[in-house]
């Protein structure tokens, strides 16, 4: 026993001796910016973080909600116990914008989260000794310009930050909208020119030359609003760079662009490659459909019964318009009328006892395009629903469809509009719009007016998060519609989030907030 004890003491002593060695391991396989960026695949995998930020676009409460719910093509009615949410979506629709509203903080953080990530990666790539890094830096700068384009469009006057290495207490100051415009234009021109002109699976859902040109077409089309001077010729040139490339074309079937598997679309120029398993965040069926519609599409999750479109927007479609009928797909950009489950029985609202005025078919779920009221007791099944993107039968709450940010159809309309704004009688402008109308199976326009142009753009581009910008450009943003009263010109810019102004005294609030 005594021997055993001494043995133990000896062993402990031995251990304490060995522990004197420095045990800091030297790893041979750690990736650093010195050894990691040896091939293009390494750059692409690092780029990912700047793109995955885009998955915030098409969910609820972010960019999509801000641009759609404030427009005349979508609203979130308050349905008794559902969707009051403190009145924030009613205020958004009625243009009673408040700086404290969560949605502005979300969009701000989305855009600057993307910008900061681009800045971080640019700083990393600039330190890499690899001739290929320049192309990836250019790509990041164009992506950064994409985030700035949203800030320019929504908030207007925002800080411009292009470097990652800043002191911790750095409080960037607000720059004018004109300065942000200038920056975005410069970046798109100089950096966009360096980007690949290849359009293939490698450049899919990434910045390439044509995405930069598409962004320029948007920038120039809205230049009057953004900087106070029109740039229609430059807009036409940017559109032509896309159109004349021959790399894109109108899909004969409009809905091919929005199918569950739309990655083969010849029309889509830039998309967010959502995936229900690996890249979630695209929730449109959850956000819009009635709870019971779960049985129509056999979703694994129950929808939330939120977003609807407005009766006037619904009525802007002709009955033969393929975008309304859906053609072979069976449903168009809006879901309306009685709803059925997969065995053909009409869906029933599970609620016990309450139906608002005007809901004549009681518990049956019937998406009546006419909504009785925006609040507080909108009918639970009132309003046509947003169904532009194909619903996957048996799908989950996340969609696998890729969300379209730019497509050829939009570029045609951008060019048409620039031509038309230069010359109201331009036949080429009318013909471009008629290409869109022909595909939709409706008669061609004899001439273009502001009203028929905006309405056509609405039918074509609905629920692609562009309507807010379009209404502003057509001077319809301040008009009254349905339950939205006339709103003042300061509402063209969103308020800078109050939470950010609290944290950064150098930020300036937009006028009227």
């Amino acid at each position: 026993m005594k021997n055993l004890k001494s043995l133990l003491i000896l062993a402990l002593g031995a251990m304490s001796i060995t522990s004197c060695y420095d045990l800091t391991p030297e790893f041979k396989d750690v990736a650093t910016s010195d050894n990691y960026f040896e091939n293009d695949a390494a750059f692409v995998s690092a780029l990912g973080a700047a793109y995955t930020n885009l998955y915030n676009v098409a969910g609820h409460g972010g960019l999509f909600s801000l641009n759609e719910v404030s427009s005349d093509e979508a609203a979130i009615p308050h349905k008794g116990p559902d969707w009051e949410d403190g009145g924030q979506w009613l205020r958004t629709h009625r243009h009673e914008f408040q700086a404290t509203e969560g949605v502005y903080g979300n969009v701000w953080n989305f855009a600057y989260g993307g910008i900061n990530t681009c800045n971080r990666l640019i700083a990393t790539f600039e330190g890499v000794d690899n001739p290929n890094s320049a192309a990836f830096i250019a790509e990041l700068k164009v992506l950064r310009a994409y985030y700035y384009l949203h800030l320019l469009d929504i908030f207007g006057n925002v800080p411009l930050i292009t470097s990652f290495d800043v002191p911790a207490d750095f409080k960037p100051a607000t720059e004018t909208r004109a300065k942000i415009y200038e920056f975005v234009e410069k970046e798109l021109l100089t950096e966009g020119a360096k980007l690949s002109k290849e359009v293939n699976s490698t450049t899919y859902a990434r910045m390439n030359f044509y995405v930069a040109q598409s962004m320029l077409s948007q920038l120039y089309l809205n230049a009057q609003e953004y900087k106070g001077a029109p740039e229609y010729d430059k807009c036409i040139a940017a559109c032509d760079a896309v159109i004349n490339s021959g790399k894109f074309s109108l899909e004969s079937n409009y809905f091919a662009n929005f199918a569950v598997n739309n990655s083969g679309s010849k029309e889509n120029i830039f998309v967010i490659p959502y995936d229900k398993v690996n890249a979630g965040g695209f929730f449109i069926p959850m956000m819009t459909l009635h709870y019971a519609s779960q049985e129509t599409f056999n979703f694994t999750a129950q929808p939330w019964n939120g977003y609807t479109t407005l009766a006037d927007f619904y009525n802007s479609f002709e009955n033969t318009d393929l975008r309304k009928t859906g053609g072979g797909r069976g449903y168009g950009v809006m879901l309306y009328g009685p709803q059925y489950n997969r065995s053909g029985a009409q869906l029933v609202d599970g609620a016990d006892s309450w139906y608002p005025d005007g809901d004549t078919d009681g518990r049956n779920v019937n998406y009546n395009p006419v909504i009785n009221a925006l609040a507080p007791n909108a009918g639970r099944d009132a309003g046509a629903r947003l169904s532009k993107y194909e619903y996957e039968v048996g799908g989950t709450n996340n969609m696998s469809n890729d969300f379209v940010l730019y497509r050829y159809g939009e570029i045609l309309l951008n060019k048409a509009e620039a031509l038309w704004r230069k010359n109201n009688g331009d036949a080429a402008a009318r013909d471009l719009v008629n290409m869109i109308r022909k595909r939709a199976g409706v008669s061609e326009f004899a001439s273009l007016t502001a009203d028929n142009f905006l309405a056509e753009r609405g039918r074509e581009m609905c629920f692609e998060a562009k309507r807010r910008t379009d209404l502003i450009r057509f001077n319809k943003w301040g008009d009254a519609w349905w339950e939205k009263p006339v709103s003042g010109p300061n509402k063209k810019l969103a308020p800078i989030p109050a939470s950010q102004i609290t944290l950064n005294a150098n930020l300036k609030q937009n006028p009227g907030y």
Partner: protein
Amino acid sequence: MLTQTLSGETKGELNAGIDYSLMNGKLSGTLDVFNRKTSDLILFAPVAVPPNLAPNTWLNSGGFTTNGVEFAINYALINTESFSYTPSLILTSYQTVLDKYLDNTPRLFRTNLGAPGQNLDVPNQGLHILEVGKPIGQITAPIWDGKTLDNGKPVFSDQNGDGKVDISDWEVVGNGLPTFEASLNNAFKFGKIDLNLFFDAAFGHSMVHENRAFYEIKPAVLAANIIKTKYFDEKVTTASYNQTHVEKADFVRLNNASIGYMLSTGSKKYFKSARVYASGQNLLTFTGYTGVDPTVRTGDKGSVDSGGREAEFADPLAPGIDRRSTYYTTRTFTVGVNLGF
């Protein structure tokens, strides 16, 4: 590169106590007074974007002070050969006051009701209001007179009289933590019969009855049953959180009772002693609270909705929320025999 230095939280604690024993040990107990000061709380704080990459970061800030007293008394009231009765009572009272939160944040709202969103506008409103210099647990709500409705939706009162009804009209309508808590154990012995009654109680706390806030209205969400308590009013058709959903939750509960009988053992061949007993848990609750359980909720694990899950850790800065995920407490009866060998 932005860096923040983060350190551990600091806690200073001062305790004073007396253990006493009087009347030859018939009366005994303890008296404890404590003061606990916690500072450098690790909080998830909003930061400016840009320059920060993400809108929140962890940093040391804030603190609170807790003062409390605990008094225990144990009294062998009757102690004879055939009958004994020993009551023991514990009384506890404490209060926690917020000393500091983040710089430039003297007050903020905390926690929300959950989906579907009612009249709460997250993050600008919440069920709790944290205020420097005020106790933790202040439950806040808009005030409804219980009568005025607009299309079935409660119309809130303009408490501050500024001509509009908004968040500035919300008031503190209760505290989620009790003023004091008590537990009383009564041990009786009549010859071979032993009886034990254990009561616990809490007074002064309020509770947000979330089930009522969501489902005590005519159009229940989906096919859920409508909740009908004494507060039910069928004219209300729109769920709108207000002070009527915050109830006083004082309670006294017979938490445990057991009765036993010592059998006389004729022979000690197989076992030395035998006692048969019956006991019950959660037997009787005296409370005006209409929810399933008035027990103090010291922290909040958040709402479980839209596929969300309960938080792993309860938020101690948001006590007194009776979530929809609360499950019924069980009443348990046990019958048994104790054998001594």
